[in-house]
């Protein structure tokens, strides 16, 4: 269980999050929506304890992670896999080395076993031919796929975190990534590996998520499921998700 309790954070004089509170289970499929600079990515970084809040508490499985030291946080971070915007691949390593990074760092698997696991993951994501390519030789969609493969190589993770996973991709590739995200999260709760996706593309979010949070002015202005999303009355949020209604009309 992830629990934000009155979390506030400001960068200099700019308030990003203002007493934000919410709870989420590890098996949930959540989309955090909001405009640029509303603190969507900040929430992911707070969950991973890459930054600390100015005020409030963040409880993961009942443990307040804001009080843990960097060495204690290692175990906590292993509960999550993250795919950052643009993939965040190590540009000095090829695809295979990127995907194998965690396996080499933390397991005693032989090179053959690592190779086997990497090939299996790349095959699943349909990029096995790119195994020896460097990140700069990959397209945007392929980079995201490699980043997803790398995050999947971490066997212990209980939840996936996606930061703008479909931003900057053409509709077809974005659709493929959405399908992939959904496939990874297949299964029945509570055994399912859930995810939190941060995006401003409502149409992508609606394809994969079951719960939606909308951030505005540092606060959660909406928290509900898909039915609630369609019946939302707040004019500003309605305006934000307007593309959804346009798509519905076209259909």
């Amino acid at each position: 269980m992830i629990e934000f309790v009155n979390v506030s954070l400001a960068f200099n004089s700019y308030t990003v999050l203002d007493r934000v509170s919410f709870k989420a289970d590890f098996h949930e499929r959540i989309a955090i929506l909001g405009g640029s600079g509303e603190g969507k990515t900040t929430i992911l970084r707070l969950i991973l304890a890459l930054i600390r809040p100015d005020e409030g508490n963040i409880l993961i499985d009942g443990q307040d992670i804001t009080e843990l030291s960097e060495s204690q946080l290692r175990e906590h971070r292993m509960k999550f896999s993250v795919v950052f915007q643009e993939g965040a691949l190590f540009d000095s390593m090829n695809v295979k080395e990127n995907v194998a990074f965690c396996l080499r760092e933390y397991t005693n698997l032989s090179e053959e076993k690592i190779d086997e696991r990497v090939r299996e993951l790349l095959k699943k994501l349909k990029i096995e031919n790119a195994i020896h390519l460097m990140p700069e030789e990959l397209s945007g969609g392929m980079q995201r796929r490699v980043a997803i493969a790398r995050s999947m190589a971490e066997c212990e993770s209980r939840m996936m975190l996606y930061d703008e996973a479909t931003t900057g991709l053409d509709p077809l590739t974005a659709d493929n990534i959405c399908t992939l995200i959904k496939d990874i999260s297949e299964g029945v709760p509570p055994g399912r590996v859930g995810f939190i996706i941060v995006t401003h593309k409502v149409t992508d979010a609606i394809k994969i998520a079951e719960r939606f949070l909308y951030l505005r002015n540092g606060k959660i202005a909406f928290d509900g499921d898909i039915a609630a999303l369609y019946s939302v009355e707040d004019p500003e949020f309605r305006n934000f998700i307007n593309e959804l209604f346009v798509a519905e009309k076209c259909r």
Partner: protein
Amino acid sequence: MLVRYLIVKYPYDLMDIKKLVFRLQDFYILSIKSPFGSFRRPFYFREIIEQMDYMGTGSLFIVVLVSLFIGMALSLQISAELAEMGMKMYTGKIVGLVIIRELGPVSIALIFAGRVGSGVASELGSMMLGHQVDILRVHGVNPLKKLVTPRVISAILMLPVLTVIGDAVALFGGYFISTFVSHQSGSFYWSQIQDIMDFENIFAGLTKPFVFGYIIACVSCYMGLSTKGGASGLRSSTTTAVVISMTMIIVFDFLLTRILLYFLGANV
């Protein structure tokens, strides 16, 4: 005016001072912890070898080229001055002393700061901006050990090696000028170089590169890892890394010279 300052600007100034104190604290932690990271598991030997190759082999050509011309220019200047006093034959001794004790370590450290310092700061800076450092932390890898320690160790080891090579090439440049341009005896030049190759001079000349290498690596890694704000932030951190490294080399050169002269018992 004062009231306005106290209410409006003072809190921000105070915040800036607080930020500066935190930055100094972070730099202190990085510079103290990074060399000791090599004594504890996990060991990143591959990264150290890669960095040694980048810093050492990669800088060799420019160090040799610059050192050769420094040696030649110095020899020209000194022999011209000494010729007026009829003491041209002492060119070798003065060139040797200046290069081994002072000019060699400082000039090569400055080249190193320009090439390696900027490279390290921009590489780590782009890793910060591209969330690669965050990925390391998420995977439970300590960025200080994985990224900083190999660079600090490599710089500490490679700068003295480059200095020895650079000094040798500069002395050869000096020999070339004093023999073929100033028409002095080559064997006399080398015998004078041999005379100044005592413990004091070699110790003084070789202590500095270790300290300079440590300073350049720590400053560059720190500036790289504190990069914020996209391309302009990267430009700023790279420039700052080089400027601070170079300034600190000059300042520490003076301090080390003073300390070494004191401990080696020289009369000033």
